[in-house]
């Protein structure tokens, strides 16, 4: 545990060192390699010093708001985390449901799978305003569709796909002899699903959920920007980016926040993994 924490901090320091090294050595106004203009500029406006970014965290957010910026960023992270988690939960439920359907009925599998793949080629930027405007028209018995739910749905839209594909593979990973065994026990389709296929799928679902957690974060951050939802980390990124010419380190404080958001979602999956896998055989030692 201490080792892992040390590794994590060490890797952060390495990234910071590489950043500073390039900033010292790289060309001020960018540069070209073989005629391609690919070397980033290293001016303070484009690449602020790491210590400027960190110290900016403790300065007031703006001239009108004097609470330190880390508070504002943390509040944004907390807001987006909740939205991302709802999106992750919706996406996972839909993904698992679709996978179960496809594993159970071959017709569903052949009919659905191409559309699932197709769905992921639709750019989310195009979809975001649509979902927001549909959501705005939804009203059920006095309950109004909140704007953040549109953002969560867009996160779910990215998150469901890896879960559906990973879970489907996992459900089909049950060995033939185990399936024969369940048949010899006269197990019903439902019993085979719950007692064999889903437990066997867990080792495929954990990496799929990890992808889904990352996807839901990206979905929520992008959707916050394109639907104009206020209060989250996506909104802060776009707001601070506009001020980058006058206050270059500021946008990076929001980027730190987005990274923190991703870590927290990863921790959620990590906790799930610990719960379901703690009694399993260590890797490469299957029974």
């Amino acid at each position, binding site marked *: 545990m201490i080792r892992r924490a040390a590794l994590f901090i060490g890797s952060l320091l390495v990234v910071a060192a590489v950043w500073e090294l390039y900033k010292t050595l790289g060309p001020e106004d960018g540069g070209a390699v073989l005629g391609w203009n690919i070397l980033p500029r290293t001016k303070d406006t484009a690449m602020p010093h790491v210590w400027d970014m960190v110290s900016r965290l403790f300065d007031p957010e703006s001239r009108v708001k004097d609470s330190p910026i880390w508070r504002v960023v943390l509040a944004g992270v907390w807001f987006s985390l909740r939205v991302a988690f709802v999106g992750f939960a919706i996406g996972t439920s839909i993904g698992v449901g679709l996978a179960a359907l496809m594993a159970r009925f071959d017709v569903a599998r052949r009919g659905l799978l191409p559309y699932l793949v197709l769905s992921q080629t639709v750019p989310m930027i195009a979809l975001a305003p649509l979902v927001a405007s549909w959501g705005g028209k939804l009203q059920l018995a006095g309950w109004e569709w909140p704007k953040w739910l549109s953002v969560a749905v867009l996160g779910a839209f990215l998150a469901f796909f890896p879960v559906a594909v990973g879970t489907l593979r996992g459900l089909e990973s049950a*060995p033939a002899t185990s399936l*024969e*065994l369940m048949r*010899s*026990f006269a197990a019903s389709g439902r019993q085979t699903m719950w007692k064999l296929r889903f437990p066997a799928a867990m080792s495929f679902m954990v990496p799929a959920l990890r992808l889904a957690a990352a996807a839901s974060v990206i979905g929520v951050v992008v959707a916050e920007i394109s639907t104009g939802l206020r209060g989250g980390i996506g909104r802060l990124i776009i707001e601070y980016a506009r001020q980058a010419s006058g206050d270059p380190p500021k946008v990076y404080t929001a980027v730190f926040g987005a990274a923190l958001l991703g870590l927290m979602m990863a921790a959620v999956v990590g906790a799930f993994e610990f719960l379901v896998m703690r009694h399993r055989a260590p890797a490469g030692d299957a029974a």
Partner: protein
Amino acid sequence: MSQAVEVHELSKVFNPGSTKQVDALVEIDLAVSLGEFVSLIGPSGCGKSTLLRLIANLIEPSHGEVLVNDKPASKARLDQDYGMAFQQAGLFDWRSVVKNVELPLELKGWDRTRRRQRAMEMLQLVKLGDFAEHRPWQLSGGMQQRVAIARALATSPQLLLMDEPFGALDEMTREHMQAELLRICAETGTSVVFVTHSIPEAVYLSDRVVVMSPRPGRITHVVDVELGTRRDLDTREDAAFFKKITEVREALRGLDVDLVGDDLPASVEDR
């Protein structure tokens, strides 16, 4: 009840009508009495595993009939009249050892205390009572296979169907497991149909050894072993034992197949 298993004019054709048509079994007749131990032996592709799967109703016959405990095989499967064990122990590694044994009882809807009690009895029968809370992957191959046998016996079936259950074990563990299996069968009065590649294993365990030939799969010889019901380490060194081994080997030799013997890789499957 007359017989544990009755097979009449049983045939199985895979991929009928296509270019890949395989006549896996042709007109098989076989009866297994109550309490009898019958081995199926033959080269790869002779359909011995297919025959076992037909008896278990894991696949449907193309022609003919299978009766288990005087019932159609499908009814017998739904009634859990038999237990089954495969070459791979096939334990679920997300369940503890005792929970693995409880699985068939759980599927039948037994309540928690009753199935735990029954599973513990079964684990004691295979001498693994102390390992109830272990995980399957913490056990050796032989111990895992004993858990699989306990699981197959949990519903107290009168028939055990075994598909090379000791095929993946080393020779010493294998001989030990064979002795254990005979003890368990004697204690429970279970009939067994046992698929194997090993001639000594078939002879040591069985009342009758059924020799099968490939393409198309059929029964060519039935060898009555007649070594009595009490078999131990001395049996393996007995002249009568070697005589029966020779008899089975001769029967297999008549099949004009060169890939026959107890050292055949057991992973080759003839489905």
